[in-house]
């Protein structure tokens, strides 16, 4: 006799009488909705202070908007003008130039510093904290001090150049010289920050890899190239993208470096005017808010494009 002994579906015990219908409804909602409620502050803040300004800026950029307020819808006119505006493209070239000039040496140097800090050193914690110090300094202070270091008449750099027989350089008068001066400020502030990120990544590399490499007779430099750099690749991708975003929005350093009453133009021939500076100049110095908004959106687009390129390149090289 074969009896199929399938386990009988357990009879659900009758649900205990719900003491209060409403309370249970609330607790069900509580389960479903409260996670969203808990994370909502960020999204609400983002909507108010991020998304709304972004969209509103887009709206303004489609108008002829000046001191008198909205002067009428003009579609993409501002963007059309922007594409033919030599000052805008000059600012784009300056920004990209300074981005490369600041980011590349900065990240290379950060990597070296991180590798050094990763050694067995005396007062290691102190040294590690030391590299963070420049970030604590205000940008304005950095700008002022470096402006004096790169001063034409009494600057330290020209003083040192004088010692080796080089005639003084007017750092603000040429593109190359002003770019170098400004990139130095950026490097000084951010190298330590990036090296700490690298250091954190290096700490997670298993010691055994190095031990094995040492047994195999690999030199320290070889170990750095073949173990350290590939292992911290995600951190490198991160810093490259972050530095690109920051570099595209470079503003305070060149502004302070520019000095004078019309510093926002970044030099007499716009030698070191960045896109953010040009945006500010158009919006608030020339009172053309619509045009300024169009530039703001172009910065957004440029950053997006650069971030994507960065991402693709770094991912490809990872393969």
């Amino acid at each position, binding site marked *: 006799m074969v009896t199929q002994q399938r386990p009988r579906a357990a009879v659900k015990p009758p649900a205990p009488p719900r003491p209060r219908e409403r309370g249970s409804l609330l607790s069900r909602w509580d389960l479903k909705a409260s996670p969203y409620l808990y994370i909502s502050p960020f999204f609400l803040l983002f909507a*108010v*202070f*991020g998304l*709304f*300004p*972004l969209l*509103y*800026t887009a709206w*303004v950029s489609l108008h002829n*908007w*000046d*001191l*008198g*307020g909205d002067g009428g819808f003009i579609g993409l006119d501002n963007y059309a003008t922007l594409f033919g*505006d030599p*000052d805008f493209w000059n600012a784009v070239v300056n920004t990209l130039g300074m981005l490369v000039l600041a980011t590349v040496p900065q990240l290379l140097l950060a990597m070296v510093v991180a590798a050094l800090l990763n050694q067995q050193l005396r007062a290691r914690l102190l040294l590690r904290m030391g590299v963070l110090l420049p970030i604590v300094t205000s*940008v304005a202070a950095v700008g*002022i001090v470096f*402006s*004096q270091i790169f*001063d*034409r*008449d*009494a600057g330290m750099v020209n003083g040192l150049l004088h010692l080796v027989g080089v005639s003084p350089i*007017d750092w*603000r*008068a*040429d593109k190359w010289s002003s770019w170098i001066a400004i990139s130095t400020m950026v490097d000084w502030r*951010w190298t330590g920050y990036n090296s700490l990120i690298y250091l954190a990544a290096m700490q997670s590399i298993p010691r055994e890899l190095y031990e094995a490499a040492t047994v195999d007779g690999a030199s320290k430099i070889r170990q750095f190239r073949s173990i350290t750099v590939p292992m911290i690749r995600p951190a490198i991708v991160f810093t490259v993208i972050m530095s690109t*975003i*920051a570099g595209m*929005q*470079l*503003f*305070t*350093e060149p502004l302070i470096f520019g*000095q*004078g*009453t*019309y510093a926002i*133009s970044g030099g*007499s*021939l716009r030698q070191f005017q960045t896109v*953010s500076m040009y*945006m*500010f100049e158009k*919006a*608030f*110095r*020339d*009172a053309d*808010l619509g045009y300024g908004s169009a530039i*703001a959106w172009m*910065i957004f687009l440029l950053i997006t494009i650069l971030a994507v390129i960065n991402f693709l390149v770094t991912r490809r090289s990872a393969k």
Partner: protein
Amino acid sequence: MPARLRRTLLATAMAATLVAAAACGGADDDQQSASGPVTLVVKTFSQFGYDALYKQYEASHPGVTIKEDNIGKLGDYSPKLQQWMTAGSGAGDVVALEEGIISQYVAKPDKFVNLLDKGADALKPDYLDWKWNQALTADGKTLIGLGTDIGAQGMCYRKDLFAQAGLPTDREQVGALWPTWDAYLATGKRFLIANTGAKFYDSSSGMYQNILMQQGDHTYYDKANTFVADSNPAVRSAYDQTVGMIQAGLSADLDQYSPQWNAGFKKGTFATIACPSWMLATIQKQAGPENAGKWDVAKVPGNGAVRGGSFLAVPKQSKHQDQAVELVKFLTSAKGQIGAFQAKGNFPSSPQAIDDPVVQGLTNAYFGNAPVGKIFGASAKAVKPVYLGPANVAIGDRFTNALLAVEQGKLPPAEAWSKAIDEAKRLVK
């Protein structure tokens, strides 16, 4: 990375002002009938020296409280003002408008109370003509502000450097050296030959603005607000004269308000500087006590000059327009201007105030007891009225930058000129 925040902040600020604008309908809860107690908010930048005047006004106008909202630098103040005016809220009841700012708003006068509707026409004789006209629209129908101070200009010079160069040091004789700018250039050449190690003046932008403002009538725009910078001989002539001085090697090539410029006062890297009355305090501070008695003030070449100076205006968004207009009239009256002059040395724009013994009798101990009240007063009264168009400041920036490029040796003068014209045209569109 604060630079990264900048764009977000800007956008946020614009958004916030919009929200505020939307909300402002019912936001002003101290809105009262004309007779009730009111608080008047006055927006200023830098120093207007009104504290004592506010107290006087409050004492004679029971129920009125005045609150001054001061933003230190004009550069920070003017974008904020733009936001308030564009958003339609935040500007308070009285705003200060600097000479450069007011020309933009005169071109769009609808944001301000027309003071001619509030009986201001009777006050016309209380202000210098050109000062009055700067706040008046081209059609003469709207007056958006009343004048406060002016940057009446003199020429400050270093006595010790002049003595070294074999030039006279007495301020009357020094003034006589340069009846015109050509004479000033000639004096500069004499100075350079003496090889004191100093240049003749600090920066070409100051000189250029000075010469331009003396040409009279109008500069970059004609009175119908048409862009004429490329055809107005006054602009070209001011530019050429400045280039002439650069080419003669007179300029120390110091951007005004840069650290080198500040240091230049102390080190004596230049012998003269065109100095509006408010500049005296800057010179005294930068040159320091160790250089006391070395500086003096003479008359400026040409027929007087002014640079800078402000107005008070009542935005239409004010909920207490009539009381605000009363306050503006009081603060800009001859009495008010003398009060501000005594408090912070802002030179009056009212002829009655300029002729007042308090102003006329003023001397400056740091500048060898120079009778600055007389010198600046004469300069202010000699100036011919100049009409400044809407984007006057922005265009002026282009020209001074062109001159800076010439000074730096980066562009020949003719190229720099056409670059400035090009940029200005693109700006005006």
